């Protein structure tokens, strides 16, 4: 067999149309999972701040479990393990979204908790002194400010989760890496294809970074 150490640009170029179909899958898993993860994160993040001890405890358990186990194990558990419990298969897309959701949800819980705790005590006191209820103080004063502070760490988490979806090739969901593997199986151009795959991740995460930076700046501008 002829070993080619040369980077073959035409092979790289040729792979692009075969890899592009992976992008919508990668985006769907990432952002579908993150959207649900955000809801989970708000729920457990606020639970973590509850005055009620067992609620805080419940949130801690959730966070520890899903931060403390690898996401690869989580997705394998959901895709291969859960069907045995549920008595029916789970499709790969659903499993991928669920894995991102529960995993990012644990990290986002901590982001939410930190964001809310970072708001000065005086904001709540001023709200209460004006007659706002505790719920109103949270909704109109604390949460909007916390949310702004949460944007950078949330962006960070989004980038991590996008990259995490690359592991889901193991359950056969047709995301970027999976498309690459399928294509390489017929062309044997691993060097070029994984290079292009890497560039595609970079394009996604970089775009996100730029959007976030723009958002942060316009956010600061109106304060």
């Amino acid at each position, binding site marked *: 067999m002829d070993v080619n150490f040369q980077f073959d640009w035409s092979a790289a170029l040729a792979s692009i149309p075969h890899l592009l179909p992976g992008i919508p899958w990668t985006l769907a898993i990432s952002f579908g999972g993150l959207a649900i993860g955000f809801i989970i994160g708000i729920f457990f993040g606020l639970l973590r701040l509850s005055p009620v001890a067992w609620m805080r405890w419940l949130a801690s358990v959730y966070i520890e479990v899903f931060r403390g186990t690898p996401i690869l194990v989580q997705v394998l558990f959901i895709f291969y393990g859960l069907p045995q419990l549920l008595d029916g298969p789970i499709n790969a897309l659903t499993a991928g979204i669920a894995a991102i959701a529960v995993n990012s949800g644990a990290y986002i819980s901590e982001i939410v908790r930190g964001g809310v705790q970072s708001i000065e005590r005086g904001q709540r006191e001023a709200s209460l002194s004006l007659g706002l209820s505790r719920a109103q103080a949270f909704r*109109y004063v604390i949460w*909007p400010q916390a949310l*702004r502070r949460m944007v950078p760490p949330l962006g960070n988490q989004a980038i991590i989760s996008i990259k995490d979806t690359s592991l889901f090739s193991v359950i056969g969901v047709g995301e970027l890496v999976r498309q690459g593997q399928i294509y390489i199986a017929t062309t044997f151009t691993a060097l070029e294809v994984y290079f292009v795959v890497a560039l595609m991740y970079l394009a996604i995460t970089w775009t996100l970074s730029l959007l976030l930076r723009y958002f942060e700046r316009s956010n600061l501008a109106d304060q």
Partner: protein
Amino acid sequence: MTTNKPPIVRMQKLHKHFGSLHVLNDIDLEITPGEVVVIIGASGSGKSTLIRCINGLEEFQSGLLEVDGNLLKPMGKSTKALQTIRTEVGMVFQQFNLFPHLSVIDNVTLAPIKVRGQRRDQAIETAKRLLARVGIADQANKYPSQLSGGQQQRVALARALAMEPRLMLFDEPTSALDPEMIGEVLDAMRELAKEGMTMVIVTHEMGFAREVADRVIFIHKGEIAEQGAPEQLFDAPQHERTQAFLARVLKH
């Protein structure tokens, strides 16, 4: 002050602890509507804690506290009365505590709209009138961070006044301000006092206290050590502690 109006604030045998620290010790205090009461005392003597009890930002362990007919029980947990009290008692803080994510006008209209259920246009109209009254009508659409400290504190005053409080609490309203901005805030407060607002003011501005106070209260280690008309308290303090405190603060 001898009037037969019922007091707006009535504290009896009020005790407050932070853990093992006895911060307020057997406080008896009545404040009459229209009265301007200035509270002075050394750092850590319990001045802030005392006025924060009045609007329930601090709970107390025993005693009685009645604000405008609403009874607050020891250890919190009288939410309905507490809620009523907070809508009727305004507070201005040392650190202003404006809402940084809201414009000046939104800072002032938030509570009237959400708590009093005012219509937005009506709340804005009131807010503009109040901002004009404290001399910052032209800043309505700015954000707090775009204002000077003195302007921010005047917004905070307007924000509290927008709820049409029956009583205003001030916790060192000028202590975080640059010297050249203290005057503008004190002027606004002076104006308010003239209009008959009931005010409880913690301050280190002794000149201002002498001028606006109907009564000055000196707190020492969580107790009311001495109180009286400003002339009496400043010019002829009875207690050794008061004398020592005044000697210290009036020196500079």
